């Protein structure tokens, strides 16, 4: 449990997101815990971890009408394993022009290990979004009661993750309560979402992995990513993904290395759309503490 103290580390960088309500996860296929409360790196038989930390930053380079290009978006997640349970800790920060949201997630995953390569996991997470209301009062057309500074929206995420050899599947619901703050009419509301994920990891010899994946989120409409990941020597992973609804190309590259028996990873991502004018970049840092 001592190592849980590590959770306080790695808060770097401030960057941008024009997105609203939903973090646009450019690294989804390398860890979908934000979307799937039932997913954890412990599912990979090659990773016998006791704690893992994963920080991502996203940078969106797109001007809005005020001429500003950036609002910060930061996600941080940590996992701590205890027998068949994994405890998960998430922090997501999103900044808007009129408020900011600091979302804390506390969850638990229970895994049924049929074998080392055959596992089924169930996850439950409580989500607590703290919205800064103070900033609203700087906007001339919205006036809230002055004494209210922060509003908490509590919500629930559920997820199931299944692994058998190279095949992975996940289905999850996020913000199931779709909690809202309604001072007069709905001012803030969590967006309820359903997410599904499938992938298959083809190993070619000992050194090459090829993993096609599909990530589908039927929120309002069918939002689909198709991805292909290439892993070399279990060190370098490159991924191309295509997001259909925005005709968006996405490129990721990640290096995984070791510090003594522990593993770290550093990833970069970039995406751009054929039709939209924004460019997005992301940084991912991760660390896994082994037994």
């Amino acid at each position, binding site marked *: 449990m001592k190592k849980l103290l590590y959770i306080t580390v790695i808060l770097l960088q401030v960057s941008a997101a024009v997105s609203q309500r939903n973090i646009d996860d450019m690294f989804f296929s390398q860890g979908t815990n934000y979307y799937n409360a039932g997913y954890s790196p412990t599912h990979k038989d090659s990773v016998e971890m006791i704690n893992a930390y994963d920080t991502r930053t996203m940078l969106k380079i797109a001007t*809005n009408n005020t001429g500003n290009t950036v609002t910060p978006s930061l996600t941080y997640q940590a996992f701590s394993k205890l027998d068949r349970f994994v405890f998960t800790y998430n922090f997501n920060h999103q900044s808007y022009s009129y408020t900011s949201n600091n979302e804390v997630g506390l969850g638990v995953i229970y895994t049924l290990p049929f074998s080392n390569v055959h596992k089924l996991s169930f996850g439950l997470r409580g989500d607590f979004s703290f919205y800064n209301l103070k900033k609203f009062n700087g906007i001339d057309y919205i006036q809230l009661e002055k004494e209210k500074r922060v509003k908490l929206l509590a919500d629930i995420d559920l997820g199931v993750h299944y692994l058998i050899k190279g095949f992975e599947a996940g289905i999850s619901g996020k913000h199931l309560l779709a909690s809202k703050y309604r001072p007069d009419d709905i001012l803030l509301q969590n967006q309820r979402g359903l997410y599904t994920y499938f992938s298959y990891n083809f190993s070619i010899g000992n050194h090459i992995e090829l993993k096609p994946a599909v990530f589908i989120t039927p929120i309002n409409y069918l939002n689909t990513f198709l991805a292909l990941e290439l892993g070399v020597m279990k060190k370098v992973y490159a991924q191309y993904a295509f997001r259909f609804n925005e005709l968006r190309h996405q490129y990721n590259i990640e290096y995984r290395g070791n510090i003594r028996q522990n593993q770290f990873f550093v990833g970069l991502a970039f995406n751009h759309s054929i039709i939209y004018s924004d460019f997005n970049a992301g940084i991912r840092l991760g660390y896994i503490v082994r037994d």
Partner: protein
Amino acid sequence: MKHILKVTFLLLIFTACKKEATLSVSPGTLIETNEVKTISRSECVQLVDSADISSIAQYDVRLIEIVYATEYDGKTIETSGMLFVPVGKDTVHFVTYNHGTVVPLKLFKMDEATPSLFTGQSVGFGEIRNVGLTWASAGYTVFMPDYVGYNRTRDKEHPYIYYPELFKSIYHGDLAVKSYIQSQSAYYDNRMFLAGWSQGGGASLSAHRYFEQNYPGTFTIVASLNLSGPYNFKRFIRSVFENKETANDKISIYSWALYSLNKFSELKRANDRFYSYSVYDQVSAFNPPSTVPADIFNNFFIKQIVDGSDVAMNSVIERNSMINGWNPQGKIYLYHGDADDFVPYFNSEDCYEGLLQLGADIHFTTYPGATHYTVFPKYLIDAKNQMDLLK
């Protein structure tokens, strides 16, 4: 890590420092004219497919690209439009025709709907080809501005249905055309007709207003002949927001219009204050993830528009409505199909009632059972006949 931070920093600097060039001439200056093609009278008859114009067409038609300076977002830039000139006519009867909505994406074939890119093609350019060749072969000198956001200005966002900004490229184009006409030998008495369809109908009626209010004497507006335009912008927007839970398959248009209104007016609010999905630009505004307004827009914003408590936004919406607040000097002709499923019929009804009360010389033609698109062939001929009576 250093490198990553460096690259990020440089990208930000690059984005922030991108400066646009501004022209040294004043808006309305004619920069150049380019002869595109001359289309014979008989070719005009063949190329027009919305009506049989064999008894109307009298002249061959010259296509001349007009390149001129206009003002956009506070800067002077170069833009263009197409002039259709009846060959051999010694008196100029000038019409400015404003085209309808063109989605600013190649995917939606915007280059087949931009006036200055018309070179006599028989496919695409339906509105441009039919209006330009019908009216010009009948003896009218027809100018069609591209609007900013197309052809030479495709790198810029289009001020969609925000009339005070949209008007600028129309006005400056007309000034440039006037200087071209005056350099020719034909007689021109400064009179002008304004016309347009859909967004162009609104552009035409608003241009009528701004010409008379802001630039009296520059042109004498004989009449504007406006087809199926969103003149009552306030009700146009509210009709959607008052039914915020109802799916609306034209929501893209409303979303884009609001984006434009916010961007080109003095409001310039960050998009996340009224959109509940990521809106980076006009294209993402045009491509919402749902057809239900309550899923796209912040509900609090919707409520404040409907109940009027967002005073600033409502004031801009009000300003963009043409149904009252001015007293037209030239005649106004409105045309609308009562089965219009795109721009509701009430726009013309309200405009007619509102301006009639203010003493306007206004006339309203309803096309029974006609939709937003089936009205066009009727209007093409009816508007020409009306201009014949007034010219």
